[in-house]
């Protein structure tokens, strides 16, 4: 569906393209786990949020969390997915020490949502789209760590330590169609999922806390071919950057194999962040027989039209729609993404821009001075003492020529520290810009009188000293003079012979 193939990818002179699908596991933001009332929180003491149900104790039973179901449906609706009339939970049977029941409650053939389309912007300015196959609900596993080995990895360890706090946390699995072609597209797809889920309150999507994990399926084929090549599945990426690197690395590996006339083995490969390469984890020949069957402990889920309409109504304005609007307002793509990906910033900008009626000037303050102050102080712009209305007032003061940009910058620093109203400060401290030519001429005359040598230099043709003279006038006026007018009056004065 996307048009941009991997630039320059070729095998022995034949142009090739990579075909990429992504499976994401995203933890849902609920108070409690999927099937029990234990808390769903990150970072609690090991094995402190566990009960008979999420520990798979004999006799315990699951009861689904309504909110988790609704959050997942909202996630699907945000991308135009269908919500089937009937959905059920199935058991996926396999043994693993961090999976308490030795089966995972998941969904096999009746996911809660089907289809959907993710449209995204790649940072190079191109757009792309990737179809969703499905989003289904399942429960997370516990977390193992591997004591006894030097580097904490599984290999070389004598035993593993398991914390079941994460076991049973609601997880949505988002499966994409193989519509992605490049690493940057993959990142753009993931960023779009992330910002949408964050905006919906569906998940906090923190890869570093494991609330988003993704696997990449990748194969190569001659450009123009519709058949798929043999794919590999890549796991263990812990950032969007590593997803991109892993994809580039795997494309290069597969291309090199094909160039040598070798076969690609269908297998799972792990990404090694330090080495920058993927390595074989196991081959698919070691077949899994998950013995899916409907979970007899749970009843089917049927969302009624009313429920779906209500959830659709709760979606609000989605990040993609806002990006679209920013771009149509003339905001460059990279800055539109910066606005949307900084928590609270887009809404702050939108409010201030609406109040001031000057989107471009507002954007410059938001992404410039305010973002710098936010970085320096660690306080997000939207939570700072500079309210959106105070910023709008400031923008209006600049626009009206009441204050100059130097004063505006200083004022912003004071508003950041102390809050308050820009207009009040300007009035009480007499910071309004001086645009009276007579008053400026007085200062200009003083400055020229005090800088005879510079004036002589200028008149001798060294016109670049004008800047120094402008600065001196500005300083003399304590920054309040209108800079354009200062320059204009200075030139006039300098070019008038006989003044000394």
């Amino acid at each position, binding site marked *: 569906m996307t048009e941009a193939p991997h630039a320059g990818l070729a095998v022995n002179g034949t142009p090739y393209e990579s075909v990429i699908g992504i499976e994401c596991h995203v933890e849902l933001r609920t108070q409690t786990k999927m099937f029990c009332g234990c808390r769903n929180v990150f970072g609690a003491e*090991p094995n*402190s949020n566990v009960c008979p149900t999420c520990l798979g104790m004999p006799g315990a039973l699951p009861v689904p969390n309504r909110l988790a179901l609704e959050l997942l449906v909202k996630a699907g609706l945000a991308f135009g997915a269908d919500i089937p009339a009937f959905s059920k939970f199935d058991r996926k049977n396999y043994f693993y020490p961090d999976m308490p029941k030795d089966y995972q409650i998941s969904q096999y053939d009746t996911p809660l949502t089907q289809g959907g389309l993710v449209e995204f912007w790649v940072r190079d300015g191109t757009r792309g789209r990737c179809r969703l196959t499905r989003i289904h609900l399942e429960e997370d596993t516990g977390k193992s760590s591997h004591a006894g080995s030097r580097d904490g990895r599984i290999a070389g360890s004598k035993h593993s330590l398991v914390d079941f706090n994460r076991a049973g946390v609601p997880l949505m699995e988002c499966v994409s169609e193989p519509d992605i072609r490049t690493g940057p597209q993959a990142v753009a797809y993931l960023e779009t999922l992330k910002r949408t889920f964050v905006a919906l309150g569906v998940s906090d999507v923190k890869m570093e806390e494991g609330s988003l994990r993704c696997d990449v399926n990748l194969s190569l084929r001659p450009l123009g071919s519709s058949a798929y090549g043999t794919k590999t599945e890549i796991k263990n990426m812990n950032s969007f950057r590593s997803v991109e690197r892993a994809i580039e690395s795997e494309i290069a590996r597969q291309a090199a194999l094909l160039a040598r006339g070798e076969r690609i083995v269908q297998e799972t490969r792990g990404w090694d962040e330090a080495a920058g390469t993927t390595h074989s984890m196991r081959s698919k020949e070691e077949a899994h027989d998950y013995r899916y069957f409907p979970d007899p402990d749970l009843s089917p889920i049927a969302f009624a039209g009313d429920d779906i309409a209500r959830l659709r109504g709760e979606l609000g304005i989605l990040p993609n729609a806002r990006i679209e609007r920013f771009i149509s307002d003339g905001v460059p793509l990279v800055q539109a993404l910066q606005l949307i990906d900084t928590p609270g910033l887009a809404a702050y900008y939108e409010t201030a821009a609406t109040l001031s009626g000057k989107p471009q000037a507002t954007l410059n303050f938001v992404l410039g001075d305010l973002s710098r102050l936010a970085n320096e102080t660690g306080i997000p712009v939207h939570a700072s003492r500079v309210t959106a209305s105070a910023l709008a007032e400031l923008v209006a003061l600049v626009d009206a020529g009441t204050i100059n940009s130097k004063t505006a910058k200083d004022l912003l620093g004071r508003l950041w520290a102390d809050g308050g109203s820009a207009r009040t400060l300007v009035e009480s401290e007499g910071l309004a810009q001086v645009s009276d030519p007579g008053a400026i001429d007085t200062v200009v005359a003083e400055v020229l009188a005090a800088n005879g040598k510079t004036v002589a230099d200028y008149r001798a043709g060294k016109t670049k000293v004008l800047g120094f003279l402008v600065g001196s006038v500005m300083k003399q006026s304590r920054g309040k003079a209108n800079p354009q007018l200062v320059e204009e009056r200075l030139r006039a004065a300098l070019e008038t012979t006989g003044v000394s």
Partner: protein
Amino acid sequence: MMASDDIDVAYVAKLARIALSPDETERFGTQLTALLEHVAALEKLAVADVPATAQVVPSENVVRDDVPRPSLERETVLEAAPERQGAYFRVPRIIAEDSIVGEET
């Protein structure tokens, strides 16, 4: 379709994670093959257009609110563990050294 002598006991025991001696594999194979011959009687039932019953008393949308309930005391939980290390369950190393298996979700 419902071949009665088709159970591969060794394969099924592997899936079910039960170690069987050769004798047991043989004995269970005989017994289970006999049982499968009995259940093959179901082939005589015409079921093509019959819906499958997963739940005999139908219900749907049985859910709970997202409200926390108390968890178990950690000591109670860990005391029951065959092996523990501090606040963790201690389990044998997850797989043999030469084949690293990733986390499934």
